[in-house]
């Protein structure tokens, strides 16, 4: 299970931020060649990000590069960035499975012999992209996550962004369902007001309740708040451990179904409990329930 609770955007033409991106505590950094870079500086940022990937130690932080849309600078971005071995590309404004096929062809051409295939996170931020979410999620085995970009999406449908997020409930649900159906991760849209910590907390709690396990992040100050919501708490871990214990006891007695505190424990419940324990172990919380 990949651990992507927070994916922090780093402007691609800012050397100071690029060199420090790995120490801020996010699970992944997104070195951004798209919105954070002015059109006349695309060449400069592309070369700088390529050098950062080759020379900066990002430690356990997953390196993701947001390239430009496929109808703008993506071809040059892929040709330069992919040989530098980022873990994944975040491809913006994906509209269809055909877009993914185009990107994959370019990536295959750019990869060096023996290079580990670069993964793909598809950013869905248009009405058509959301309508095609499942076919996009299934378009290629490189795709590890779908992410929602709500700002462009709400602008496209004529909705206004609100703190409650009611206008993106359908979009969030479409991304979640498509990702779950394809067996990949769903990543929530960023919370864009970096100064509103209360709003971020509520927005992340809603995202978790809906099923998101990760969130795009625009400011290092948001990382701890998002982690605090998306990490399993001691209650979750304790419940998961009791579930696993109950199913083991049932299995020893020859049954595939167990009961815990009067409630049935079957395969989906066990799978959820296992996910919680794996996550707890990954973030160093295993044993916290005792």
């Amino acid at each position, binding site marked *: 299970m990949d651990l992507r609770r927070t994916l922090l955007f780093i402007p691609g033409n800012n050397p100071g931020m690029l060199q420090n991106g790995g120490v801020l505590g996010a699970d992944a950094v997104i070195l951004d060649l798209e919105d954070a870079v002015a059109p006349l500086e695309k060449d400069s940022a592309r*070369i700088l990000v390529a*050098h950062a990937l*080759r020379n900066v130690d990002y430690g356990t932080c997953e390196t993701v590069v947001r390239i430009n849309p496929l109808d703008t600078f993506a071809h040059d971005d892929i040709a330069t960035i992919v040989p530098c071995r980022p873990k994944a590309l975040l491809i913006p404004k994906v509209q269809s499975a055909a877009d993914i096929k185009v990107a994959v062809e370019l990536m295959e051409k750019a990869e060096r012999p023996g290079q580990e295939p670069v993964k793909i996170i598809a950013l869905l931020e248009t009405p058509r992209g959301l309508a095609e979410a499942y076919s996009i999620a299934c378009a290629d085995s490189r795709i590890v996550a779908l992410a929602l970009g709500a700002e462009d999406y709400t602008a496209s449908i004529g909705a206004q962004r609100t703190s409650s997020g009611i206008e993106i409930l359908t979009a969030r649900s479409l991304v979640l369902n498509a990702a779950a159906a394809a067996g990949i991760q769903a990543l929530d849209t960023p919370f864009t007001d970096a100064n509103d910590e209360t709003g971020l907390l509520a927005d992340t709690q809603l995202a978790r309740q809906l099923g998101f396990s990760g969130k795009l992040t625009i400011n290092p100050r948001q990382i701890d708040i998002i982690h605090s919501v998306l990490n399993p708490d001691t209650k979750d871990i304790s419940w998961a451990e009791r579930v696993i214990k109950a199913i083991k006891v049932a299995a020893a007695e020859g049954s595939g179904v167990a009961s815990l505190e009067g409630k049935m424990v079957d395969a989906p419940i066990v799978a959820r409990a296992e996910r919680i324990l794996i996550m707890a172990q990954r973030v160093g919380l295993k044993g916290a329930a005792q």
Partner: protein
Amino acid sequence: MADICKVIQSGTLESSDIMITISPARKDSGIFIELESNVAMQYGDAIRATINQTLAEFGVKNIQIKAVDRGALDCTIRARMLTALSRAGITLNGELF
């Protein structure tokens, strides 16, 4: 062998960056580097070496360079040099490293 025909700039004056300005020079005038850096005493030679090495790779022999350094890492200096050379019309051939 490559000649630079116009004045080109890359990079910024922000912390950890370096601003490179390259200008044409007369034939056989060589490479002239004007370096401004708060850490020139400690790292001036290293910065010049990175600039010279990048020029050598692309066969640039006559050029004037003004480099205003704000504490850039070696890879940033090289990236900004490559950007400047590319903007001056030199093909990088995808071999940036």
